[in-house]
């Protein structure tokens, strides 16, 4: 009896899911997390290498790239909630939403500069150590640069109803969320959740009016 119910439930869920994503950029549920990261990363690098305007620092085009190819696979709410730590549960749902929106915008601004600088780097993925039953995994890679030591670039992903989503990245050994924790806590201690939101909003406004520096 049980398997049949399960089957029906799964079928319904799959159907519901299938209809809900037809319009969206279709994140494939069955795609393994390391495959997902490999695909996004190859896609982004190819796009940047083929697009002279992105290389020249055209902000709108970079934003398009980030919005269409990266953000659908990022769980910015989970990211923000972890960076806020114990303060997250003290925030109202509206505050939580504002906070994750502003944090996501900040990350988009700061990392879009880095994207325009992709040149001859290649990305090498390391074998993933994970159990198929895991709902959180780490995908490890390194960026090989033309000179100097390779740059560590690791990702943490969690399984969500819409497939795997990235919620933390590690650059050169430091996790993004962990690095922001101290900053968030200090701002919240100074001015509460709203103080942090205000600070992020201000920073984003400054960054939006500042032109992207053309890479040399």
């Amino acid at each position, binding site marked *: 009896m049980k398997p049949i119910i399960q089957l029906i439930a799964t079928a319904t869920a799959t159907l519901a899911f299938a209809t809900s994503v037809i319009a969206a950029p279709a994140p494939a549920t069955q795609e393994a997390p390391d495959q997902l990261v490999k695909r996004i990363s190859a896609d982004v690098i190819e796009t940047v290498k083929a697009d002279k305007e992105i290389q020249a620092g055209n902000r709108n085009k970079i934003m398009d790239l980030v919005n269409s190819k990266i953000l659908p696979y990022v769980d910015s709410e989970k990211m923000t909630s*972890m960076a806020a*730590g*114990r303060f997250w549960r003290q925030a109202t749902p509206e505050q939580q939403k504002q906070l994750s929106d502003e944090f996501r915008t*900040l*990350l988009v*601004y*700061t990392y879009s*500069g*880095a994207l325009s*600088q992709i040149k001859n780097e290649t990305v090498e993925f390391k074998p993933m150590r994970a159990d198929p039953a895991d709902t*959180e*995994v*780490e995908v*490890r890679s390194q960026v090989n640069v033309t*000179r*100097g*030591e*390779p740059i*560590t670039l690791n990702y*943490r992903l*969690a399984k969500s109803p819409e497939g795997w989503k990235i919620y*933390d990245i*590690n650059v*050169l*050994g*430091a*996790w993004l*969320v*962990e*690095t*922001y*924790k*101290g*900053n*968030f*806590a*200090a*701002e919240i*201690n*100074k001015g509460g959740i709203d103080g942090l939101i205000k*600070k*992020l909003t201000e*920073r984003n406004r400054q*960054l939006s009016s500042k032109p992207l*520096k053309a*890479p*040399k």
Partner: protein
Amino acid sequence: MASNKKKTSATLALAAACVLTGYVTPAHAQDPFEHFNRAMFTFNDTLDRVALKPAASVYKDTLPGFVQTGVSNFFGNLSDAWSGVNNLLQGKGAAGMTDVTRFAFNSTFGILGLLDIASEAGLQKHNEDFGQTLGVWGVPSGPYVMLPLFGPSTLRDTVALPADVWADPWRYKVPVALRTTGAAVRVGDQRATLLDASDLLEEAALDRYAFIRDGYLQRRESRVYDGGSPPGKDRPEQDDDRLANVEAAPKPVSSE
């Protein structure tokens, strides 16, 4: 002998505890000297703003790319030998031999290290210093220390720094004028490679001091474990425990 062993494991437990508490308390168990450190940070930062960064920008904008690559290869090569020694001290024979081979190759066929042909031959560079070696040997990093001129460090790495300075072949260069010029070019070159990263940092951080500290401490720890995590800390699920711990920790006092 047995008690010695016990002592070692007690030290290790203490080290682990230090690292863990550094992890769970946001403001900030590993930074008891924050007041001093912030002052040093401001000092370094001012120096950087008025002298180092402008000089590095000029260096980067005016010198042809191949010259810059040559300079950074040359000093990189000098550091490879010491990296090799440290890798061997850490018991990483293969990596150590790679570094030694790199040094031998680049110093000869690579014209005194100006060309990094070893990298092109697939011999990867590792940067290892004595602080990392001490870390591998089980010495805890201790509190965060912002050193004048040298920048972010920890107590362990500060203690290890004289060994790195002593082992730097450039130190023994005579005449003095050449040595000083070389050292200046080296610092300028290192700063130049960081220009983009420091701009990014400026935009990303809400409080640059804390951001650099929290990033640096993680990076240092990951370097000791060569990109892995210390035993028992390699699962992402660990984060939930950490959050729970943060919950239990006393409310941090505002640092500013």
